[in-house]
């Protein structure tokens, strides 16, 4: 009889028998010791397969979008992911804090309409410290933008109901035919919950300020969009320039005086003092949307586009720039792997 094959060969007989030499297979078939060895190997293999299950249910499209949007200098970290999902909440808190004015009883009442965008400096560390709105109440996204590619500019305009601006002259390095995207209106609501506020404060080891009467259970609603975008892609399929337009964010309240909600939010711990101070400055007329700018990553400066006040943002490494402005209830963005001058030239030349 031939010598006993080693454990590795017996293991391979379990799941890849064709890879085992005929002589070994014949030996095992006639050798009680090796047959027992194969049975043991099979048992361990089965045990391992059960211990290492893998769900295969993944959304490849969503995963691809995430990769395409990833910052090249930074792997997609848990932090990024954590903060990406409540971005609606982030926008909502911005509107809530920046908006002002009207108090009304009864039905939804418009309390804020974006007419201007102003940058608010938020250091990365502060952003980490700032609790998202779900710590203070219930956030519900009632409709999602469902941004999707469309065939041409006419289709994008039809879906969004907006005129997509045309670029007079493409900057150097941006070439080829653009693609078009359209997105539906997004709608999110926020309802104050005294119990959540108390629980959050307790976790922080603090006592929350007393909630004003009527605030518990009162709701705010934010809507933005629909919108459309023209996207020029680089050879690698990543956008090199985007011109996007959307119906600017508007907020509504169910009736509690807005100033009550705003002051209460501002009095809660977690919001960095300088951010709160900056936000307070915007509260006068309920028309200025704060745009978070992380000074570690972006610098911002005021500018103008066709007479409208605009904000020019540039990445600290000088690689990316964006300009954003609001006119007649629509917000327009020109952004790309371009210099500040280049995006401004494009923005000012839009037709």
């Amino acid at each position, binding site marked *: 009889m031939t010598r006993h094959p*080693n454990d*590795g*060969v017996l*293991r*391979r007989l379990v*799941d*890849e028998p064709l*890879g085992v030499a005929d002589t070994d297979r014949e030996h095992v078939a006639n050798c009680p010791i090796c047959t027992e060895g194969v049975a043991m*190997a099979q048992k*361990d293999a089965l*045990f391992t397969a059960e*211990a*290492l*299950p*893998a769900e295969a249910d*993944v959304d490849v499209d*969503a*995963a*691809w979008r995430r*990769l*395409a*949007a*990833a*910052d*090249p200098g930074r*792997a*997609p*970290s*848990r932090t990024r992911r*954590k903060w990406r*999902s409540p*971005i609606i909440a982030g*926008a909502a808190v911005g509107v809530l804090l920046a908006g002002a004015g009207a108090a009304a009883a009864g039905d939804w009442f418009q309390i804020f309409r974006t007419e201007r965008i102003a940058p608010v400096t938020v250091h990365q560390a502060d952003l980490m410290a700032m609790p998202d709105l779900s710590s203070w109440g219930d956030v519900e996204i009632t409709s*999602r*933008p*469902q*941004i999707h590619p469309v065939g041409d500019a006419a289709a994008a305009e039809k879906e969004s109901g907006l005129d997509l601006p045309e670029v007079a002259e493409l900057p150097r390095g941006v070439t080829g035919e653009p693609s078009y*995207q359209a*997105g539906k209106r997004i709608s999110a609501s926020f309802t104050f919950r005294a119990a959540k506020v108390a629980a959050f404060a307790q976790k922080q080891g603090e006592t929350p300020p007393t909630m004003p009467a009527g605030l518990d259970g009162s709701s705010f609603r934010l809507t*933005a*969009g629909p*919108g459309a975008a023209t996207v020029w892609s680089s*050879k*690698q*399929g*990543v*956008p090199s320039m*985007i011109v*996007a337009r959307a119906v*600017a*964010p508007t907020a509504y309240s169910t009736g509690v005086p807005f100033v009550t909600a705003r002051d209460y939010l501002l009095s809660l711990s977690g919001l960095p003092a300088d951010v709160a101070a900056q936000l307070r400055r915007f509260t006068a007329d309920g028309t200025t949307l704060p745009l*978070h*700018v*992380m000074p570690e990553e972006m610098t911002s400066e005021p500018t103008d586009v066709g007479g409208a006040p605009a904000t020019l943002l540039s990445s600290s*490494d000088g690689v*990316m720039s*964006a300009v954003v402005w609001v006119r007649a209830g629509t917000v327009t*963005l020109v*952004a*790309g792997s371009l210099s500040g001058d280049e995006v401004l030239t494009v923005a000012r030349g839009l037709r």
Partner: protein
Amino acid sequence: MDLALAHGGKDSVALSRRSPVARDDLEQVFRAAYPRVVAVAARVLGSRDEAEDVAQEVFLTFGRSDVPAGEALPWLSVAAAHTALNHIRTGKRRAGREQAARPHEATVPDVADAVVAAEERRRVRAALARLPRKQAVALVLRHSGLSYAEVAAALDLSPGSVGTTVRRAESALRKELTS
């Protein structure tokens, strides 16, 4: 900066700085291999969310590499196994998210089962982390469907020794988890 403001969150139009990737075939490879790569990482981590984070890291690295497309799957699988094992060793966890996600898992009917399942996952992760690295990677790759020849090529082993390596790993894992 909330560039996503007007459109909102993950559905927004993605605007990247200079491309994170330098290869034209990335999307094609990604779409073909992503589920497999997630599955490799999930076998190590026992958590799909965490596995997807690992897969993203791995594809970003792949995107900057010049690995031939024909060798992409074994390369990505090895990278996913190593990165996932590194996550365990460096203690990277998303405990909060796992906690939050657990009640929604359809396969976990109640809290008691959830606790048992979580404990089981923790033990498997710990056991994998204690195996010699080559054994752990070979084990995960073989259980992810790579052939003996592919595992051998990926880990620079002789085809004959893959079976031995996997066998040792399985035996050690069972002993550790049933002790």
